[in-house]
């Protein structure tokens, strides 16, 4: 090699090293690790926004519950005082007077007052803005104001004095519902100064929660440090929480193995979770929603929709499915759903709703006898003597392997047990959602995420006539039961009405429920006091014990 060439290579190498150094900051995170407790958690994907009025995804909630505190806290089925020290409520559960604690402050030291809650609520409902997340269906006149039909002064939120806030609700409402991120206070001065960029960066957000956001490297890392101004700081044992964005699947497993993560709800395969448990990790579970086959009451054709509107036909389909088999083959980490428990696990008190109201409309395996009985009834009603006269149904889904496997398995079960034929229409996401919105299918494989649903009737609402485009389900009896549940004035009445609604739903097989999806949280053995909170996992009060 001649001199000139050596020189060229040396220069190039130096250039590369300089470039490498230029691109990197220091390796030190903002919190030193010397004896301090830093919890490293997986964050599934990049947060939309940390502005409570604009965040629509679960991971934004995960971080928001570290840096904000709502009026009331909810964790593991219990409600705790948040910024509201206590509250009084009228008999109908529609008027709440919250007594706010006087030592609650924002992380900059400014006191949290009733005005900050009023500001946050009215801002979210602002008819001029198109905020996605707002309590328009909870607060009295919220919807009207939002649609420009009434004045802000008519909205059911009122500041009585700095530390007393009155909220009037549209329907009976329960304390658990005030743990929603609708009820985070906002620091008006900061929000107004940041304008549309509020919540988009670490330096552009100001909360009142146990932690303060100090770093948000987009698509990479988020760091929240203990808020020394938080009123209940003695209960906060961690020095900081570091969230690793996009740490999921095998990446999260590898990170947990080498100690780069302490907690992850982003490991999806059973074998990986079991492998980590063998290394001393622990597992926490919570029912997080349903997998179901949604029926379109508009249908793919006039012929199919006649059948889909026949209750006995739908019941035949429901009983012909072997859910255990499906779970074992496709939905491996789910539980078989033998009911459609609307409030999920959101019941408060000694027992969860599902325990208090035991119900099993269909079994864990197929009941072919019953399925055939319903099929005969349906054929009689439809004046058809042979299954060959029944049209072929279209199953719409996302074009991924798992979805196709699930639908193929279900189509096989229907063909074998009832002689019903289906074709699969697998589409990329945008086309699938378009078709779903237009109701252009017979069955659509979907999922409801019920993580910490504080609104017990969130999903029941979607089947109310005309509420949700693409469902086209119209049934006056169902609507009446829904209205009864919504206007139930006590918690007991609400649960009873939910149960009635659930029974009606199942007896009419309005949709075909398949499994209960599970949230699987894997934790390092040293981590304690992690809870399932409102909407998300509550890491804020966790501890690390050596």
């Amino acid at each position, binding site marked *: 090699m001649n001199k000139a060439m050596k020189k060229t290579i040396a220069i190039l190498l130096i250039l590369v090293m300089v470039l490498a150094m230029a691109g990197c900051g220091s390796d030190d995170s903002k919190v030193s690790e010397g004896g301090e407790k830093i919890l490293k958690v997986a964050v599934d994907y990049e947060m939309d926004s940390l*502005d409570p009025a604009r965040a*629509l995804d679960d991971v934004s909630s995960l971080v928001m519950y570290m840096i904000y505190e709502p009026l009331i806290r909810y964790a593991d089925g219990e409600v705790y005082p948040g910024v509201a020290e206590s509250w009084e409520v009228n008999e109908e559960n529609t008027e709440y007077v919250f007594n706010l604690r006087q030592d609650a402050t924002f992380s900059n030291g400014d006191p949290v007052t009733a005005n900050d809650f009023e500001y946050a609520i009215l801002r979210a409902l602002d008819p001029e803005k198109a905020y*996605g997340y707002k309590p328009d269906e909870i607060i009295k006149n919220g919807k009207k104001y939002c649609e420009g039909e009434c004045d802000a002064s008519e909205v059911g939120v009122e500041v009585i004095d700095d530390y007393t806030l009155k909220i009037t609700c549209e329907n009976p409402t329960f304390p658990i519902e005030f743990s929603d991120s609708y009820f985070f206070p906002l620091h008006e001065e900061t929000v107004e100064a940041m304008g549309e960029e509020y919540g988009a960066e670490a330096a552009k957000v100001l909360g009142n929660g146990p932690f303060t956001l100090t770093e948000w490297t987009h698509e990479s*890392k988020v760091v929240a440090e203990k808020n020394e101004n938080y009123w209940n700081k003695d209960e906060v044992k961690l020095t900081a929480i570091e969230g690793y964005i996009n*740490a999921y699947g095998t*990446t999260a497993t590898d990170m947990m193995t080498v100690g780069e993560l302490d907690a992850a709800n982003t490991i999806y395969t059973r074998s990986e979770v079991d492998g980590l448990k063998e290394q001393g990790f622990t597992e926490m579970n919570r029912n997080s929603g349903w997998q179901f086959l949604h029926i379109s009451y508009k249908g793919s054709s006039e012929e199919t929709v006649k059948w889909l509107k026949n209750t006995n036909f739908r019941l035949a389909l429901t009983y012909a499915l072997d859910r255990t088999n499906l779970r074992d083959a496709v939905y491996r980490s789910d539980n078989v759903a033998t009911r459609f428990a609307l409030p999920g696990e959101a019941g408060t008190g000694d027992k969860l709703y599902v325990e208090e109201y035991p119900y099993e409309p269909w079994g864990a395996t197929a009941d072919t006898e019953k399925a055939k009985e319903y099929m005969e009834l349906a054929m009689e009603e439809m004046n058809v003597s042979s299954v060959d006269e029944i049209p072929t149904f279209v199953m719409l889904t996302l074009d991924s392997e798992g979805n196709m496997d699930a639908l193929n398995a279900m189509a096989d079960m229907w063909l074998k047990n009832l002689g019903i034929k289906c074709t699969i229409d697998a589409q990329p996401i945008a086309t699938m959602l378009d078709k779903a919105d237009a109701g252009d299918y017979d069955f659509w494989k979907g999922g409801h995420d019920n993580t910490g649903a504080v609104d017990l009737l969130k999903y029941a609402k979607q089947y109310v006539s005309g509420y949700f485009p693409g469902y086209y389900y119209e049934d006056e009896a169902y609507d009446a039961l829904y209205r009864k549940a919504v206007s139930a004035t006590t918690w007991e009445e609400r649960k009873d009405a939910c149960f009635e609604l659930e029974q009606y739903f199942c007896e009419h097989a309005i949709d075909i429920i398949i499994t209960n999806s599970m949230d699987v949280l894997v934790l390092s053995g040293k981590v304690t006091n992690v809870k399932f909170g409102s909407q998300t996992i509550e890491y804020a009060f966790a501890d690390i014990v050596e």
Partner: protein
Amino acid sequence: MSKYVLKRVMITLATVFILATLTFVLVNLIPGDPFQSDKLSPAQKERMSEYYGLDKPILEQYAIYLNNLLHGDLGESLKYPGRQVNDMIRETFPVSAIIGLIATFFSEIIGWLFGSLCAQYRNRWPDRVLLLFAILGTALPTMVIGPVIRNVFGVQLKLLPTTGWGSAKHIIMPAFVLGVGMIAGGTRSMRASMLQTSTQDYVKTAMAKGLSPKEVLFHHKLKNSMVPLMPNMGSTIAGVMMGSFVVESIFLVPGMGKYYVDSITALDYSVIMGMTVFYGVFLVTMNFLVDVLYGFVDPRIRVK
């Protein structure tokens, strides 16, 4: 020469305009709606469309888009409210660019070395072994190599951090995984180019003059074999500097590739358009630079 450069500038500008228009048209043809969330009611979706100007006539939207583009404003993300596409590019492009540059640098050096060796030992065992290695590098996708490398060096040997960004150590694995696939291309092009060069008269003359094979290789074959490889460098470097979705996902690197792909699934119109136009401008600029440099290196080009 100045006429040649001016002509290239005009072509570059026209390309960018066509690209910007085409991106706008294609993005508007994608079915679906960017505000897909079960937390949004139809009325809310409508109001958000109105807020972001998506309800305006398509030609008006196009005019606004071009006007903003002329002012260097790529707009605000629809999925991440309050975040400007310009900021996203400013934050993520340097990350992807560094990994891309290092990956290109090493893979090209190794590719050229392998290619030269293959040509020197044509049809003998070093040629076959190196070609096999090159083919394996291309055949094994990064989504297979990545997790394996991460597991070996991060989990088993604990030599490098498994994921993350922030220190020089964090660059090694992603750059390596990104570069491996490119070594193959470099090897094959260099091999072909050098075999071609070997048959040239000046090489035969040099050998006839009695120069040693080493001297012929370094003084005549190597340099001349590199010239035909230059035109492709512009697009290769531009492509790799834009980031890789797979590599960034495996090693949790906050680069541009992931944003780019995610924006398409989320139908984040402004991010898709902004990043495509940025990529387009970067690509044509790189090609322009290579063309001009090529004009300097090889006088025959600018004469044409």
